[in-house]
C-alpha cells in the first residue's frame, strides 16, 4: 500500500478495481444522523449516478468522499487512502478528486483563466506558462477558448459550469464528483454541460454524479444508486432501477420525478 502522506501516484494499484470503497459510513450533524450506514463500491472508469429525494443525504455523501465533511464512523477508501485515518493528508487526497458544485463557486476575483490555473500553480507548483497552456487546452475542450480573459460574472450559467468543470480537470483528477451540476441552470443550457460530462464518461473518467436528470442518468450511468433516509435503498443498472424498481420507496420516488 502506498504511503498516503507522500504519494502522488494513482489511487488505484493493479490489484484494486474498486477505486472508491465506502464501508458502513455514518455521518451526523450534532444529533441529526444524515447518513446511517452507507456501503458502496465504485470501479475505476465507472459512472455512478445517485438519485433520491431532497434531504436524503446525497450531497453529504459526495462531500464526505472528498473530505469536505468529516466522517462520524465507518470509512471511505480512495484507492489506498483511508479518509477515517487522521494521519491522511486530505489535501493529498483532494489532488485526485475533482468536484463540481451546483452553484459553480467560481472565484469572482479572478478571470476564467486564473480560476483554472490557480490550483495547478499553487498546489502542483506548475509554472504560469505550463498552467496557462493546459488551461487553454481545457477551455478548448469545453468550448470556451475565447473566454479565457473574461470575468465569471460575464458568463452564462452553462458557461460558468463548463469553466468549473475545466477548473476541476486542471488538477488531472482520477475521480470527478458532480453535485447537481445542472440544476441551477436554465433548461436551454443544461445540454451543453451534460455534453461535457458525457464526453468525460466516454473517455473513461470515474465519476459519481448526484443528479435530478433521470434521462441523462439512464443514458450515461453504468450504475444508479437510490438513496433515501440515509442509506442506499437500491442500486443496479439504469435499466433495472428505472425499468424494474423493486422497493416501494423507489417506485414512489420515480412516480414523482418521471
Amino acid at each position, binding site marked *: 500500500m502506498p504511503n498516503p502522506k507522500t504519494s502522488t501516484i494513482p489511487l488505484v494499484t493493479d490489484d484494486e478495481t474498486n477505486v472508491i470503497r465506502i464501508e458502513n459510513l455514518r455521518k451526523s450533524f450534532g444529533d441529526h444522523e444524515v447518513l446511517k450506514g452507507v456501503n458502496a463500491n465504485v470501479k475505476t472508469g465507472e459512472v455512478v449516478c445517485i438519485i433520491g429525494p431532497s434531504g436524503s443525504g446525497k450531497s453529504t455523501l459526495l462531500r464526505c468522499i*472528498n473530505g*469536505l465533511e468529516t466522517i462520524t464512523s465507518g470509512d471511505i477508501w480512495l484507492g489506498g487512502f483511508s479518509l477515517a485515518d487522521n494521519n491522511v493528508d486530505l*489535501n*493529498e487526497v*483532494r*489532488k485526485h*478528486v*475533482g*468536484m463540481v*458544485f451546483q*452553484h459553480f*463557486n*467560481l*472565484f*469572482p*476575483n*479572478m*478571470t476564467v483563466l*486564473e480560476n483554472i490555473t*490557480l*490550483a495547478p500553480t*499553487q*498546489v502542483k507548483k506548475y509554472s504560469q506558462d505550463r498552467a496557462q497552456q493546459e488551461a487553454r487546452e481545457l477551455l478548448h475542450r469545453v468550448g470556451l477558448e475565447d473566454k479565457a480573459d473574461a470575468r465569471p460574472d460575464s458568463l452564462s450559467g452553462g458557461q460558468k459550469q463548463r469553466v*468549473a468543470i475545466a*477548473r*476541476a480537470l486542471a*488538477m488531472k483528477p482520477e475521480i470527478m464528483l458532480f453535485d447537481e451540476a445542472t440544476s441551477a441552470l436554465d433548461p436551454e443550457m443544461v445540454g451543453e454541460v451534460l455534453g461535457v460530462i458525457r464526453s468525460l464518461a466516454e473517455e473513461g473518467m470515474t465519476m459519481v454524479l448526484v443528479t435530478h436528470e433521470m434521462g441523462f442518468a439512464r443514458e450515461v450511468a453504468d450504475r444508479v444508486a437510490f438513496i433515501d433516509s440515509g442509506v442506499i435503498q437500491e442500486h443496479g443498472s439504469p435499466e433495472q432501477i428505472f425499468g424494474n424498481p423493486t422497493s416501494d420507496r423507489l417506485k414512489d420516488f420515480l412516480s414523482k420525478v418521471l
Partner: protein
Amino acid sequence: MRQGKTFLSFVFAGLIALLSFFMAPAALADNAAETEGGDPEGEVYVIGTDTTFAPFEFRDPAGELVGIDIDLMKAIAEDQGFRVEFRSMGFNAALQALSANQVDGVIAGAGITEERQEVYDFSDPYFTGELTIAAVEGSGISGWGDLEGESVAVKTGSLSEEWAREMQQDHDFEINALDQTTTMVESVKSGHDKALVDDLPIIAYGIQQGSGLELVSEPEPTGDYGFMVNKGENQELLAMFNEGLNNLQESGEYQEILDHYIGGESGPDPSTFLGLLATSIPALMVGLRNTLLITGISFAIAMALGLMFGFMKLSSNIILRGIATTFIAIFRGTPVLVWAFFFYFGLPQVLGTPISIWVAGALTLSLNGAAYIAEIVRGSVQSVDPGQAEAARSLALTQGQSMRKVVLPQAFKMMTPSLINQLVIMLKDSSLLLAIGFGELLYQAQQIYAANFRTTEVLLIVAAIYFVAIWLLTGLANYADRRVNK
C-alpha cells in the same frame, strides 16, 4: 497576477504618499510649542498655559502666541537667562499636565487659592484680579439682583464660579459652568445665558475686540494671580520667576506689558469676511496639516491592529478570540475623549515619564479605530460565500492558500467602503484631540476666535475646510478602490 495585489498594499501605498507629502520637518514639531527667551544656552523650561485666555494668552492673527502671561514669562526668561517652551493646552489641561510633570510650570492667569496651594507652589503675585459681570449691550442688567431666575455663565473651576456660587446664596439664578471665555461670550450672545462672570481684563479685552457685551457691575477684587510649579518641584524656576518679576517691576517693563494689552484702544477687528479668511488661513492650514497627519498615522496603525484583531476574532483559538473580543468591547464601549485624557495625562503619571502629544493622539485615534476596523474585517471575511472556500479546498489548496488567494481578496473588496467610512470618522474624531491641546484644525480655529471674537465666521470657514478635505479624501479613496478592486 491581479489577486496578488491586495487591498492592503493600496492602503499603505496611499498612506505613505500622504505622509511623505506632509512630512516637512516642521510638521512633526508640536505647533503649540515654541522655544523663546534669553540665553540660547540656557536651560529650557516647558510652560503650560491656557489656549484662549485673552489678554493673558491668545494667538494674534499671525498665529503667534501672545498675551500678558506670555510676554511677562518671556521677559523674565530674558532677565534670568533661561529659555521657555510654551504649551498652550487649556486651563484645566495645563493644571493636569503640571500634576503629571508633563510641564515644568504653568502661567495661565491662575488665581492663588488655598486649594491650589495644597497641590502647587505659587510665585509672588504678578497681577491683581478683578471679577465683573457682563451682559449684552442694552440688556438693562446692572447687578446680581437683575439675574433672578436667569442662567449665568461662569468659567469651570475658576474664581468666577466661586463668586457666583457665593452670590447664589442670596440670589436665585442658575449657574452654567463653561470651559472657555469665548464659549461663555457666545452663550450669552445666543441667549442661552443672561450674563457671564469672568475676569475683568478678559471681558474688557473682548469688548475692545467687538464682542458686543458691556460691563454691568462694579468690579469685585478677587485676589492675586501667580505663576505655579508642581508642589516641591522646580523650586529654582520659581525663584528665578520671583526675582525676574521684581526686576521688571522696578524697571517699568512690567507696566509696559500691561499697557500694551489693557491700556490701549484698538476697537473691533475691522476686517471683512475675506480679510478674516486671508488672515486666518495660514494658521488653519497648519491645523489642517496636523489633522491630516495624525489621521494618516493613526489610520495606518489602526489598519494593522484592526486586521490583527479581526483575524484573532475569526480564529478557532478561544484565547485569541477572547483577547480580540475584549479589546473590541473596551474601545468601542468608551468615548474617544476618555482615552485622549488617559494617554496624555493618566499614563505619564503611571509610567513616570512624559508622553508626546503626537503619541497620545495617535494612540487614542488608532486604538479606537482598530476596534471598529477589527469588526469590519471579521464581518467581511465571514460574509464571503462559504462555497468559495469549499471550492478552493476541493481543489487541494491549503487553508492558508484558500484564505490568501480566494477569501481575502473578496473580503477586502467588500470592506473597502466601510474602511473609507472609518477613515472619514477618524478624521472628524481627530478634532476631539483639541481637548488635550493638540494643534489640529478646530484647535487653531479656537485660537483665532478667542482673539477676535468672530466665532461664527471662523467656525463656518473651518466647517468648509473639513468638508472639502473629506470630500477630496473620499474621492481619492473611491478612485483608488475602483482602480484596485476592479
